[in-house]
């Protein structure tokens, strides 16, 4: 069983970019069952920019599933942005999931934007000023919703889609000082709470492609400036252990991340 996943993040569309991705996107049906977008679809999160995303990524021959990124929140027009994307047939995830019937099996995708906070031993704590607590609780809440969404999906293969990074590995190349703004270990913990086969994220424009969660789940940073191509393609599951891809309801809740 192989499921073919194409993914890119941080395309930051506006009028000046429309059309640049389209020739490559037209080739998608030949190499992928689905296209995942890892957030930062726009520059400022305006409805007009969302229409550019709809033009560029709408009406493709493969399903398109996305999460939003921090840039897509900039102008406080999230509901309008989501509506434009959904009207173009793009599935927008935030704390929920979707199961797609692919030739190689049922692909479950759970997504959240995620948030910062940092990584084990060097992270923010839920302590002190209300602003600090609100920051950390935003992350914890996001990770909790990702974990619950992952564990709820009944599918043959499970993928986690976030904007912020679940691991520090894929941030290599970014200044260490800004890691806490690029991701959070709680997202990794959520991914490891289910039998996830692959985790895809963006946001770290100067990071690197490959990493692994402490639980052994492969992580890929697909930010456009990192992959330097229209999208990356992963063929997942060629010789996957059948235990690892059995229905989530049976194995997901038993597997611990610790």
């Amino acid at each position, binding site marked *: 069983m192989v499921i073919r996943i194409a993914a890119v993040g941080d395309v930051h569309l506006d009028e*000046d970019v429309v059309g*640049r991705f389209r020739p490559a996107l037209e080739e998608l049906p030949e190499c992928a069952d689905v296209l995942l977008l890892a957030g930062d679809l726009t*520059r400022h999160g305006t409805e007009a920019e969302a229409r550019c995303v709809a033009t560029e990524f709408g009406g493709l021959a493969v399903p398109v599933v996305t999460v939003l990124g921090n840039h897509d929140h900039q102008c406080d027009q999230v509901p309008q942005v989501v509506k434009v994307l959904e009207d173009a047939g793009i599935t927008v995830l935030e704390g929920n999931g979707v199961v797609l019937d692919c030739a190689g099996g049922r692909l479950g995708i759970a997504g959240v934007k995620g948030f910062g906070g940092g990584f084990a031993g060097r992270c923010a704590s839920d302590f002190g000023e209300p602003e600090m607590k609100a920051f950390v609780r935003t992350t914890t809440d996001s990770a909790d919703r990702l974990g619950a969404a992952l564990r709820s999906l009944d599918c043959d293969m499970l993928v986690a889609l976030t904007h912020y990074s679940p691991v520090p590995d894929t941030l290599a190349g970014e200044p260490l000082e800004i890691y806490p703004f690029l991701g959070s270990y709680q997202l990794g913990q959520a991914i490891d709470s289910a039998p996830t086969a692959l985790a895809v994220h963006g946001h770290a*424009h100067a990071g690197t492609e490959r990493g692994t969660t402490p639980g052994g789940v492969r992580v890929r940073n697909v930010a*456009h400036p990192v*992959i330097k191509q229209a999208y990356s393609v992963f063929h997942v599951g*060629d010789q996957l252990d059948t235990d690892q891809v059995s229905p989530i309801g049976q194995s997901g809740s038993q597997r611990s991340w610790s």
Partner: protein
Amino acid sequence: MTHHRDIDTGPPDEYVEAEIQRLLVEDPAVAEQGITVIRRERALVLYGEVESPHRREEILRLVSERFPDVPVTSDIGVIRAQAPTEIEQLP
């Protein structure tokens, strides 16, 4: 806005670096978080990757407009958007 030392008195201030970095993120005409500002002797070098040639021009225009006395050179690339030539197998 911060007042700048004359460029002849030494390399630009660290604050100029910080200000340019924030300008590039917070100015709606640019909104780029991925541009690095490096201080070299007597000049600032901007590098990073953007999605269009237009955005690269906007960055340079904005920086030279706000910091007319700071010599700036740029090494900003436009990210390729071609279809991949290889796939990654994840067994």
